[in-house]
């Protein structure tokens, strides 16, 4: 790998890590709400969360680009241009990878149900205490799936990155866009190397998820 390739790998890893952290912080309460709400808005919110799965990345990237730009709502709010920056890329990736974090968490919270929570409350645990000591461990598999899938999906994104981040070396050029650049420049050897790396990485990540799911079965009651 060239220095440029390595810097792209580094940007990719930073982006995926930051995106997953942001999504866990924002996604946990949202997934909890979705798992337990009886609100009539639940299906609408679920559909919104799932939207990035079906939407072409260019469409999602286009809207985020508009929103982040100096004249967009987010750009106006923060008084700066987030388009073509790393921060803008994190925001875009968070939307793009949202379903891959929220859905496993929601599933895990639904599977855990209210029963262990009520038991913890009756044993004097506060809401936070009960969530941290009872629900989180029971939902551990959901968290592992959410982290691994969110990370891997962010590593593999291309369309949204290109729309929102451009491909600025060291800032917004990530692995997937680097492959594209190599192919554009007819550097097939380097494209091969990077592609093989992403292929093997993705396989290993998914394999890890499935092995962990077998290793840590949660025994319900």
């Amino acid at each position, binding site marked *: 790998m060239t220095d440029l390739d390595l810097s792209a790998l580094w940007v990719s890893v930073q982006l995926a890590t930051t995106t997953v952290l942001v999504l866990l912080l924002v996604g946990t309460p949202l997934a909890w709400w979705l798992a337990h709400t009886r609100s009539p808005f639940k299906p609408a919110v679920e559909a919104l969360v799932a939207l990035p799965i079906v939407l072409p990345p260019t469409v999602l990237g286009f809207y985020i680009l508009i929103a982040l730009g100096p004249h967009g709502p987010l750009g106006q709010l923060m008084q700066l241009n987030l388009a073509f920056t790393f921060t803008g890329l994190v925001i875009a990736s968070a939307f793009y990878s949202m379903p891959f974090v929220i859905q496993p968490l929601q599933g895990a919270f639904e599977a855990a149900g209210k*029963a262990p929570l009520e*038991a913890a409350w009756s044993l004097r645990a506060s809401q936070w205490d009960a969530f941290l000591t*009872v629900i989180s*461990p029971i939902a551990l598999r959901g968290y592992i799936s959410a982290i691994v899938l969110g990370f891997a999906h962010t590593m593999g994104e291309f369309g949204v990155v290109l729309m929102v981040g451009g491909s600025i070396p060291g800032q917004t050029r990530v692995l997937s866009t680097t492959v594209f650049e190599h192919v554009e420049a007819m550097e097939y050897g380097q494209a091969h190397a990077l592609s093989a790396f992403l292929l093997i990485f993705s396989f290993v990540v998914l394999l890890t998820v499935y092995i962990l799911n077998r290793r840590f079965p949660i025994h319900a009651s």
Partner: protein
Amino acid sequence: MSRLVAQFDVRYPTFHLRLDLDIPTSGITVLFGPSGSGKTTLLRCLAGLERAPYGFMQFGDTVWQDETTGRYLPLQTRPIGYVFQEPRLFPHYNVRSNLLYGYNRIRRDTRRIAIDQVVEILGIGPLLERRTHRLSGGEQQRVAIGRALLTSPSLLLLDEPLASLDIQRKQEILPFIHRLHHELAIPVIYVSHAISEILQLADRLVLLKDGSLMGVGTLNEMLTSLQFRGSFGSHRVGAVLDAKIVGHEPQYGLTQLDFSGQRLLVPLQPSAIGQPVRVHILSSDVSLVIGRSTLPTSVLNVLEATVQEIREISQSSVEVLLDIGAPLIAGITRKSLMTLGIKPGDSVFAYIKTVALNEEVTD
């Protein structure tokens, strides 16, 4: 005497709980009624698992809920122990950590119940280091009871804790509930629809139907009351007497019980003299005689009784409510009633053919 006062009015799509309850905070109170009568909902309202929009609840001197002032103590702050129908043990902890979960969360100076004591009463010593999913249903439920007890609760609430267990497991747990109540002196509210559990455990019955209170009274008052007789299934009308062991006759395989100064003989009991024993006498096992017969009889148990009330049951049968220091029912034929010519206030002798002991009563 300290009392528990509760008024709840809460509507669900298919069900309306509305009642006004006032009971002493001592002993074992069983909430009894058919499924859908609101037993569990009432227990959840008492615990603070459900908040009745119109509600008042006072336990002893402390108001836990008063919606007129907006006062509502959340579940976490109420001094209760709650045991659910399913054990709800935490799967990621072993038995010991489950037991200590609540214990570690109460203030040191409020810990009245020790771990060793609970482990001993519930017989869960060998299980402490085990993972919860390796336990049988009965073992899991015992751990769940222990976990609740270790919060040193002022009130223990049990929601059909034996419902999911087979008869053998039930018989394994019932004595523990009895023991913990007597040894730890914690008032218990117990939800059940099984008559056998009631006969063994209850000091007091709260009868529910369709979300309303049908009646409250001591177990024997309720069992012998004509008004509630249909609620328990006609085949088990009878009386429950709390007697005390006063002597053993091992040569005959018998144990003497004392009840309000009267003697009862039952099959030999393993318990020591002075221990309480609860017996169940079915109305069909009680015959009446006027004046103590001088002729020898094979019936061992003859009690002096006063006729309280005579109730028509059918064209051929009547029930005679007797006072033997507590209510007792004799089921006799209308023809026998005519022959005896008894009326309320008369003295009679009750010949009791069979005295069933607690453990023998099944559903």
